[in-house]
């Protein structure tokens, strides 16, 4: 069975011979530990591929990302980086005050000058599942433009300026989503971080009122085009899982270990595909191999039960030991050692 078929069967909740593999790496890893990355991928190849595509250069782009210092992204947000190989934090906000809102324009040149000419060929040339990472990250973009505290206050007060900004960012993201919908990629992902460690950042009601309809727009376009839809959020997002399923998301990547994994399995198994993961805040950087293997078994028992519906994914952080990441994928290859009706062996 090809990697593509393996992923598609998993997304359709059909039994598979093994869980498909996906590996995320933080920038610092490929910058400094390329050999280890190569070694792991040789042993456990992933079943996903990125399409060959290039977005255009932004007029506001300045500096080099992930290097100590600062750089400016195509939206004009200024990122500060204090540690090599880390994404950094936005500290310069182009719309911190509203006075520039009237003249502000999203970086459409990034889309206008995007080169998608070989996307379809790159899809045809691989038997892997081709997943495109879209630019859509609406809530985060608002924060990068305004500053997080300002956005939270805008949301509380329901300002008309925020509504205008949301519309502007959403229009941009819709255009990007539509561009991907017209290609031959198998799936498209979008993201936003909605969770703190043990709750949502905003109330579920506010999320449903302000953001869910806009997410639904993304999903409608992609569903119409026959694409599989992948969504990522950091943090505790259990209260919006049901909503994500309702609007048509096929696969969710969330920090399972912030939540009740078994409870999530009970409620959502068979209705959405779990796109990983294994605890990257404690276990992957600091855990023992036994702890990591136990964590994988726990995820499998709660979410997979030998019936598919889970993608074996984890994120390899800058200092996470090679052996820990290897243990994740190795354990996914082991036979299930638990009674799939729920009792551990």
């Amino acid at each position, binding site marked *: 069975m090809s990697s593509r078929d393996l992923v598609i069967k998993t997304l359709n909740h059909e039994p598979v011979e093994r869980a498909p593999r996906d590996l995320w790496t933080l920038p610092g890893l490929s910058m400094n530990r390329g050999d280890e990355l190569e070694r792991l991928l040789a042993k456990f190849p992933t079943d996903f591929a990125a399409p060959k595509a290039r977005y255009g250069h932004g007029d506001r782009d300045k500096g080099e990302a992930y290097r100590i210092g600062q750089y400016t992204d195509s939206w004009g947000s200024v990122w500060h980086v*204090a540690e090599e190989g880390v994404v950094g934090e936005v500290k310069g906000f182009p719309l911190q005050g509203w006075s520039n809102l009237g003249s502000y324009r999203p970086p459409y040149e990034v889309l206008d000058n995007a080169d998608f000419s070989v996307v379809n060929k790159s899809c045809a040339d691989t038997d892997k599942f081709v997943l495109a990472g879209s630019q859509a990250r609406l809530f985060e973009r608002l924060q990068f433009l305004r500053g997080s505290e300002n956005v*939270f206050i805008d949301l*509380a007060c329901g300002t008309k300026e925020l509504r205008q900004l949301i519309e502007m960012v959403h229009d941009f993201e819709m255009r990007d989503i539509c561009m991907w919908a017209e290609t031959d990629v198998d799936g498209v992902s979008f993201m936003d971080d909605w969770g703190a460690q043990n709750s949502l950042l905003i109330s579920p009601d506010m999320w449903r009122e302000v953001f869910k309809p806009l997410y639904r727009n993304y999903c409608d376009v992609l569903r119409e085009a026959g694409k599989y839809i992948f969504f990522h959020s950091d943090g505790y997002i259990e209260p919006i899982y049901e909503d994500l399923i309702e609007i048509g998301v096929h696969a969710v990547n969330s920090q399972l270990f912030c939540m009740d994994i078994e409870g999530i399995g009970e409620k959502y198994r068979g209705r959405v595909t779990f796109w990983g993961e294994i605890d990257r805040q404690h276990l992957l950087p600091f855990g023992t191999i036994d702890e990591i293997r136990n964590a994988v078994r726990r995820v499998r028992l709660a979410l997979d039960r030998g019936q598919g519906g889970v993608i074996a994914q984890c994120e390899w952080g800058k200092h996470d030991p090679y052996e820990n990441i290897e243990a994740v994928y190795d354990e996914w290859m082991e036979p299930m050692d638990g009674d799939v009706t729920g009792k551990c062996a």
Partner: protein
Amino acid sequence: MEEILTQIALCIERGKINLESPYPPDMKGQPGADELTKQAIEQEIAPGKILSDALVPGMQVVGEKFAKGEVYIPDLLMSAKAMNASMEHLKPFFESGEVKTRGVFIIGTVQGDLHDIGKNLVGMVVKGGGWEVIDLGVDVSTEKFIGALDQNPGAAVGLSALLTTTMPNMENIVKSIKEKYPDTKVIIGGAPINESYAEKIGADAYYPDPQGAVNFLNSTV
């Protein structure tokens, strides 16, 4: 408690800043913490009483609700803004020494880490708990924390980290503080932090929410 103090506490709990503020919608058109605190001072209610019987309980209620997941960051921020509006009227009394804080709390995000929203929320709620908060910002070195302690003997310290890569820096800072000022209470927090890590690095406490930090600090005085 005087009726006006109850009203101020409610404004802070609900995040009603002033008359013009549209938030919360069900209090639209009503005076907020700003106007009511001014009135309370004009009615010659002791500023210390306004702090202890209105501002502190108001923030405590919202802090506890936040810890229980009953309110969210926008609500907490609006409460902090309402509290700041009240505090502006109390400022002269703090400066003259007529009103005293419970103590000094030095807070910062550890070296290498630039995340600040969690740290800011803790600072706001601790301030609302009646503490003077000295915010050293983000990417704060050991030397800067020690320097702040040199200038504020007896202060408690709060350290924040969001990245797993900066957790070792947190450990180094805690060790340096404890080496020079063994009696200093150090609280740590941040997404990857937990109680066992606090124990491991010799911090006095870890709390997953700002109100927990306030309760701990209050227990130390």
